[in-house]
């Protein structure tokens, strides 16, 4: 399983994820997304607002313009009507005749009819062509004869003698209405004989204006050509001072034919207005109809729209912000979760790698099997131990790894565990036997555990090959046995040596003295014939005694008996000496020795016997490593092994043989192998060959201490002796010594051995 496969998260090339990078990227992405979503909405809102605002403005302006134009036309018509009325009246024959005649009474009657007939006519009068009033109605005596030539209407009328509408003004008489003077010439036969003037009230126009609604607070008013208000729907113009609208730049521009719309601060309403203008054409000059609405009123929909859009945008922004925050939180939580996940994943990966490594690199075999007992994991150590490759065992039953006698128990145990979850093995360490590929059965230690997965169970067996441990244990046991024996022998050797010393000595004395006695006896025997002749009785006694003790036999055999006894004592002394060597009381000092020389020295000592038995010895060639050791002792070991090899070949009774000596260096150890082609060592004997006093040689030929002593010496040097033997083919003994020696061979060690007695 590749650790980079099948993982639901993205990883960097190196397999690690930078959370902060992810974080930044995510925030940026979300921000961009929200911005991208909001931008069209904002643009759309802005565009809608602009369009709507323009539409509203256009609507307002259209409204205003329509109202202004209609008003202007109405006013224009109305004034024209008034002018027509004046012209018609001025052409009345009765009036012309009255004026011709200058009949004040008649003209006043005519004027009264005019004033009485038309509500708009407030006061009418007639002047002569020079502008002197001479008839009026209602009659005002103080006005009689008054020269009115400097009044506006006169100046306008007298310029061309065509009808003229004056500027607006307020009558003095109560209720001081707003009026204009409408002046027309009175002609008689193409000659101007006077002027008819009446004051035309503008109330009607004002009444028309009142119902005109522009928006909520808009209205239309009319100003005359001087900028004076002519009609206004809401102002009580009678009580208010007029305002000179001509001073307002937009209005004065409009009166001169400038733009028909404008925004300005209305001085009367004191509000900013949006207005449209329409000229009221009155012939000589134009008045102006002004349709205006307070701008905030007119644009209220725009503002409302703006407000709505702002509110909508705000809400949208808030929603977006909330979304971003939520997303941020989620992403934050995600990030935390992700980090946690990542950490867990990393931990898992590490743990997985570690456990894989543990399993792969474990020096102990580890085997995993499923609940059918089929192998699903077989680590390298297991491959090495059992000799199978993983491919050879994966999917196969565990039984292939155990000797046949374990199969039944294994199957039963497995079945019982699967059914009842009870096992004698699980959770324990047991010693059982394993079966290698090559058929070898070996001891192993098995620790069985169960991995309970949700859907199945796995058995995990950790195995320890005990072969080497048993071998080591045997070696340790051997060493301990020899160590205790060496203590025993050291003490024993000393105890035996004392009596042995005088026994051997006395034996020599007895032998010498016996020989002397025999010599003495021989001398007496020469004197025996003389004795017989002298004393028969004594001679008989002597003969009888000689017969009794079997003197001839004695003389013949006593020396041999003594000699054999001395040899026996000598052998006892040799054994004791061997025991002393075994205890290694006499330790040598360490030196570099050349192994080839050591082998040759040893061979020289047995060369005679080797030649007699036709035994050839093959020696190693070339430079051999030197080792640091006690030369005398190592020579003794080599001699022991060579003698053993020689004696093994002698035992084969073939009449010839071959000893091969090999020396090689293995790491920091040197191996000396001495191989013979003798009968080999039987398997039941092999474990005992290093035991003291164990010998297969004929009685008297070996003490059974040679290999024990050799083993002890080599062990003292920090080395070991190994033996391979195949019955019928021969034996191979290997002495393995560390090149550098053991360091210090303690000469004083012997003194630490307890010695009993003297």
């Amino acid at each position, binding site marked *: 399983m590749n650790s980079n496969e099948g993982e639901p998260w993205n990883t960097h090339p190196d397999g690690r994820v930078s959370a902060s990078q992810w974080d930044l990227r995510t925030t940026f992405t979300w921000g961009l997304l929200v911005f991208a979503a909001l931008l069209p909405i904002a643009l759309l809102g802005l565009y809608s607002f602009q369009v709507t605002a323009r539409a509203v403005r256009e609507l307002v302006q259209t409204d205003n313009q329509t109202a202004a134009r209609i008003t202007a036309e109405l006013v224009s018509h109305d004034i024209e009507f008034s002018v027509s009325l004046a012209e018609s009246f001025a052409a009345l024959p009765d009036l012309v005749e009255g004026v011709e005649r200058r009949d004040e009474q008649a003209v006043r009657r005519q004027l009264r009819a005019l004033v009485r007939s038309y509500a708009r006519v407030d006061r009418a009068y007639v002047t002569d062509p020079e502008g002197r009033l001479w008839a009026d109605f209602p009659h005002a005596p103080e006005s009689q004869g008054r020269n009115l030539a400097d009044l506006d209407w006169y100046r306008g009328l007298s310029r061309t003698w065509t009808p003229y509408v004056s500027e607006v003004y307020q009558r003095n008489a109560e209720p001081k209405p707003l009026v204009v003077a409408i002046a027309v010439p009175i002609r008689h036969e193409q000659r101007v004989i006077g002027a008819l003037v009446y004051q035309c009230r503008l109330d009607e126009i004002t009444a028309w204006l009142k119902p005109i609604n522009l928006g909520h607070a808009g209205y239309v008013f009319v100003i005359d050509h001087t900028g004076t208000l002519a009609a206004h729907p809401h102002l009580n113009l009678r009580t208010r001072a007029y305002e000179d609208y001509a001073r307002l730049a937009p209005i004065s521009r409009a009166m001169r034919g400038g733009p028909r719309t404008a925004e300005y601060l209305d001085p009367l309403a004191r509000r900013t207005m949006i207005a449209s203008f329409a000229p009221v054409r009155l012939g000589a000059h134009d008045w102006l109809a002004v349709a205006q609405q307070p701008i905030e009123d007119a644009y209220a929909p725009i503002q409302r729209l703006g407000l709505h859009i702002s509110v909508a945008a705000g809400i949208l922004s808030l929603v977006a912000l909330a979304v971003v925050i939520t997303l941020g939180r989620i992403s934050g939580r995600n990030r935390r979760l992700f980090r946690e996940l990542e950490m867990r994943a990393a931990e898992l990966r590490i743990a997985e790698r570690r456990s894989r490594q543990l399993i792969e690199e474990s020096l102990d075999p580890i085997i995993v099997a499923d609940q059918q007992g089929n192998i699903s994991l077989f680590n390298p150590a297991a491959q090495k131990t059992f000799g199978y490759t993983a491919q050879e065992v994966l999917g196969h039953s565990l039984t292939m790894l155990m000797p046949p006698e374990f199969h039944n128990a294994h199957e039963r145990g497995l079945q019982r565990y699967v059914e009842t979850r009870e096992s004698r093995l699980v959770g324990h360490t047991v010693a059982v036997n394993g079966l290698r590929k090559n058929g070898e059965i070996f001891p192993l230690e098995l620790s069985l555990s169960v991995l309970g997965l949700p859907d199945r169970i796995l058995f995990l067996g950790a195995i320890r090959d005990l072969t080497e441990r048993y071998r080591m244990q045997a070696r340790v046991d051997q060493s301990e046995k020899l160590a205790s024996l060496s203590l025993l022998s050291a003490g024993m050797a000393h105890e035996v040596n004392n009596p042995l010393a005088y026994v051997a000595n006395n034996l020599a004395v007895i032998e010498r003295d016996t020989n002397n006695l025999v010599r003495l006896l021989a001398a007496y025997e020469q004197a025996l014939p003389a004795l017989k002749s002298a004393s028969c009785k004594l001679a008989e006694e002597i003969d009888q005694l000689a017969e009794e003790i079997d003197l001839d036999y004695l003389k013949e055999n006593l020396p041999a008996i003594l000699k054999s006894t001395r040899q026996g004592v000598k052998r006892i002394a040799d054994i004791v000496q061997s025991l002393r060597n075994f205890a290694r009381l006499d*330790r040598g000092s360490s030196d570099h020795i050349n192994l080839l020389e050591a082998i040759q020295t040893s061979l020289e000592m047995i060369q005679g016997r080797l030649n007699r038995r036709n035994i050839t010895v093959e020696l190693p060639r070339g430079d051999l490593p030197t080792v640091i050791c006690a030369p005398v002792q190592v020579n003794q070991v080599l001699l022991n092994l060579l003698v053993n090899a020689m004696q093994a070949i002698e035992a084969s009774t073939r009449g010839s043989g071959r000893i091969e000596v090999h020396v090689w260096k293995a790491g920091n150890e040197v191996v000396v192998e001495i191989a013979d082609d003798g009968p080999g060592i039987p398997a039941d004997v092999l474990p005992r060959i290093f035991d003291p006093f164990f010998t297969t040689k004929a009685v008297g030929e070996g003490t059974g201490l040679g290999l024990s002593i050799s083993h002890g010496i080599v062990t003292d040097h920090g080395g070991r002796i190994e033996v391979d033997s195949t019955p019928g083919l021969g034996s191979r003994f290997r002495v393995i010594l560390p090149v550098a020696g053991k360091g210090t061979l303690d000469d004083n060690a012997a003194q630490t051995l307890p010695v009993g007695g*003297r």
Partner: protein
Amino acid sequence: MTMPPKPCLLVVDDEPEVCNSVYHLLHRTYEILRAHSAAEAVALMEQHDVQIIMTDQRMPDVTGVEMLTRLKPSYPEAVRILFTGFADINSVIAAINQGHVFRYLSKPWQPEELEAVVADALAEYNRIVQHTRELAECRQTNAQLKADLHAVQTELARLNRENPPK
């Protein structure tokens, strides 16, 4: 016919049979003194003119080397032999360096070996004694010669005074 006196050998071993055995082996050639402790050995040394001391290394009160070391100043010419059933290298070194032993034997010894060693020791003793005697003779001769020389010189001086050179 009077035999020359036999050389005297002192065997020291706390094991009496060892002493007896040595006695049996060597009594015809040597006068054997037997001691079973260092104290006995010292006493015997005072009473007899001992040529060879043979001692076991391991004894209850004192080691053979220590005893030999102690005896050496008083009996410098006595030849010392050490034997032991427990041959460790350190006791051998001590025997040679401190006890000045002539030979070292390990138990059990071969009787022939013992006889040879004792014979060697006796030869050594004789050599030392002869050497010592010769040295003494040399010294005596030397002293005599010196005295003679002095007499000659005195005579020469007297003659010179009586007959002054011309």
